[in-house]
């Protein structure tokens, strides 16, 4: 006879898949600490994340972040029920720094280790803000980050996730970076385009909505494409420049952002209806985007769908999202990951954690 857990699992989470070194500590779905060190400024002049620069920064940041997290959480390592770490997807050289640290702690403190999925962490993070998923309200997740754009049917976060749609070319975040470059704006593109768009007219230019034509919907009803949009913005800007006209940066930003938000929200609501989901959960770095949040609010309300979105501060990469997913995995009674756990740059989103070999 198994007793229900007396208390929610206390979990340390470590994240190092891209340019943020994150250490979080959670108890169940309660966040106790969330320390993040970012190397984003070191990548600005390169217009994108340089893997070796990010990896070097992780090594510098990891131990100080651990120190700060334990200080803030006020818990002692021997109270931990487990250590969760991002084992994929992400940049291998970056991932291995966090995995090495997590394994070292697992050895030093004799605690079970769980390699978990970064993308699922972006979904799980909302539990810290809005509590457990409602089993009576099936959930669809829209995951929009620098490298990923997906629609996920969530049965549960541990072993029932199905990708029902994804981008067939660029991720939404990549399109933001590229359009920012075209407009001469800074990297990363998400926040600067969002800001410029506040001052622009979203209806000024009608940019294409990828994979929304009738013949595309047959094959790619829930898939995304942002490559054509990016090219359309680029071409529009060049044409205007060739004609000697000043570029209305704010209008271009607003119109581009409108195209992105329109197609993301339309397909997300459609997916909810098709799969009978009554809750839509928004996750990932781009989920901090104000227009995406606003339009999603309108359209889910109109469709009678409950919208869950973590606050912007939890949408970017962090350790608490890894810890809270780890807590879900531990609470499910899953066995720890194997001691030979490695980095899996292409870890599929349907795999929430690395189970031991059968």
């Amino acid at each position: 006879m198994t007793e229900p857990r007396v208390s929610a699992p206390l979990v340390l989470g470590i994240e190092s898949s891209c340019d943020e070194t994150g250490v979080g500590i959670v108890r169940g779905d309660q966040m106790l600490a969330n320390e993040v060190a970012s190397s984003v400024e070191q990548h600005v002049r390169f217009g994108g994340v340089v893997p070796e620069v990010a990896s070097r920064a992780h090594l510098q940041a990891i131990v100080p972040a651990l120190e700060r997290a334990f200080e803030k959480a006020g818990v002692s390592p021997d109270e931990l029920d487990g250590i969760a770490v991002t084992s994929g997807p992400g940049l291998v050289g970056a991932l291995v720094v966090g995995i090495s640290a997590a394994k070292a702690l697992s050895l030093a403190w004799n605690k079970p280790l769980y390699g978990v999925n970064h993308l699922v962490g972006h979904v799980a993070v909302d539990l810290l803000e809005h509590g457990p998923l409602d089993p009576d309200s099936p959930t669809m997740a829209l995951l929009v980050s620098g490298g990923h754009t997906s629609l996920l049917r969530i049965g549960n976060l541990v072993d029932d996730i199905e990708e029902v749609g994804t981008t067939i070319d660029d991720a939404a975040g990549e399109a933001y970076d590229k359009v920012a470059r075209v407009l001469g704006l800074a990297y990363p593109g998400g926040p600067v385009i969002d800001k410029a768009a506040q001052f622009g007219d979203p209806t000024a230019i009608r940019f294409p909505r990828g994979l929304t034509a009738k013949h595309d919907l047959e094959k790619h009803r829930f898939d995304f494409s942002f490559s054509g949009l990016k090219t359309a913005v680029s071409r529009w800007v060049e044409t205007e420049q060739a004609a000697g006209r000043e570029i209305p940066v704010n209008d271009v930003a607003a119109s581009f952002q409108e195209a992105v938000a329109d197609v993301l929200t339309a397909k997300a609501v459609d997916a909810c209806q098709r799969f009978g989901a009554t809750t839509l959960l928004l996750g990932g770095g781009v989920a901090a985007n104000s227009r995406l949040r606003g339009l999603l609010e309108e359209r889910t309300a109109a469709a009678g769908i409950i919208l869950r979105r973590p606050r912007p501060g939890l949408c970017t990469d962090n350790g608490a999202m890894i810890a809270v997913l780890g807590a879900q995995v531990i609470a499910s009674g899953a066995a720890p990951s194997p001691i030979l756990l490695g980095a899996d740059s292409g870890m599929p989103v349907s795999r929430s954690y690395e189970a031991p070999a059968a």
Partner: protein
Amino acid sequence: MTETTPAPTPAPERVVLAIDTATDICIGLASGDTVLAVRREGDRRAHVEHLTALIAEALAEAGLAMADVTDIVVGMGPGPFTGLRVGIATAETLAWAGRTPVHGVCSLDVVAYEHAEAAQPTEDFVVAADARRKELYWALYAPDGTRIGQPHVSAPEALPAAVVIGPGADLYPAVNRGQRSEGPRAIDPGLLARVGLDLPDAGDQPLYLRRPDAVAPTSRKSTLVSHKRLSIGRL
């Protein structure tokens, strides 16, 4: 035998854990001059998978736990970056978790130490390791094993005219004039654990010796001649 003065409490035994991932995965455990356990794994693409498991194995063989380790020695390179960082991240985190002091050394120094002890050379010599891209990491040593200057990375042709030993000694015909030199070809993990604390402090930063590969983008490709100045956020 008349008096029963209690024997002075012996100084607590020091147990040194040595970790080096600049080349192979090398793990050594030693107490004083006694090597307690060593592990070596040659798969250079699987550092992160194997390192902690091998440390656990070595500890088990010695009948010890991490809590028994009083000092950690870690090779700071030079070596291929990703594997090197696995060793350093592991060592630094273990050190933090156990409040154990950590001593970073130049990975080439232990090879020089071994050669100086074993062969008693009479002239300066070089320890070299594979730096990929047709280059070697290397450092010059006095006959007694003392490093002369900082480690370098360069083409094999640029090495000083001296006997070259170490893991990179046999990679290029330009080294040792194509002859095989006498001397160690690998880092000895047991030796690193025994003498690592006496090797010079290499600081707390990895010996990368190369800048990251990264190029700032040149201005956006365009067929257009003039670019108007763009502005953001004008109210």
